[in-house]
């Protein structure tokens, strides 16, 4: 009897955890999608008609077993790259991705050069 109770509790926790992970994944996708008819809102934040429809389509595609990448590429093919907040890492967006690191390194070099020149007190 005791082992049965433990088994059910464990099964419940495993099921809840899997379900929670699925919800997190869906919500992550919604957060990365821009609502095209709203001002600065993601699909996750918006209750617009367009956002509700996109949510239904994303949920359907997840049920069909499509990956996050496949869902994004489907929506990008229909609405353009603007629909995703996080742009893809490709030759077109290479500079966009590399620029923050380039600025960081250049800033470091500039600071190093400036601080090295300061006379010791």
């Amino acid at each position: 009897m005791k082992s049965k109770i433990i088994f059910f509790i464990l099964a419940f926790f495993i099921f809840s955890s899997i379900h929670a992970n699925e919800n997190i994944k869906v919500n992550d996708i919604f957060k990365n999608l821009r609502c095209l008819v709203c001002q600065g809102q993601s699909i996750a934040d918006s209750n617009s008609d367009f956002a509700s429809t996109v949510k239904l389509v994303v949920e359907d595609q997840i049920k069909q077993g499509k990956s996050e990448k496949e869902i994004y590429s489907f929506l990008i093919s229909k609405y353009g790259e603007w629909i995703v907040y996080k742009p893809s890492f490709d030759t077109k967006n290479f500079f966009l991705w590399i620029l923050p690191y380039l600025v960081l390194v250049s800033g470091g070099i500039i600071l190093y050069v400036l601080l090295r020149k300061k006379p010791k007190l």
Partner: protein
Amino acid sequence: MRVNLTRIIIFGFIFFCLSIFWLGLKKDQTYDTRNLIGNKINEFNIPSLDETNSFSEQYFLNNKFTIVNFFASWCAPCRDEHKYLVELSKNGAHIVGVSFKDKKSNTLDFLNQLGNPYKFIAADNDGKASISFGIYGIPESIIINSESVVVKKIIGPINQEIFKEILNIIK
């Protein structure tokens, strides 16, 4: 010499940032999908309004150009553009109407009242099929060739100018 180089780098960086901000401010922030032409429309299946048939990409094979028009009886701009659709139909355009999130009875009333320019009427009751066409508001019309490729997208209602453009494309 080294100080000068550092200054050049710093001022160059500031100039670069300001240029980016200036270009960003000048850029038109209104996004629409009218430039997304050349994409293939496939993998969709929308039931007809009378639920006896369905609309899929096979439909495009039979016509040089098919105009897919998303409309609804509750959409005021759809009423405004309807006369142009009727006129296009009279000029030989092959138009498929997709009734978007609308009741069948309301759609039929709308068409009885304003005329039926459609060769086929499909019903996208939950709006999910509209995503396959990249629709984000209605009315929207898409001109698709026999290879299922988008030739032109019209965001918003058709007006006199767009009407002429469509005629030039389909002729």
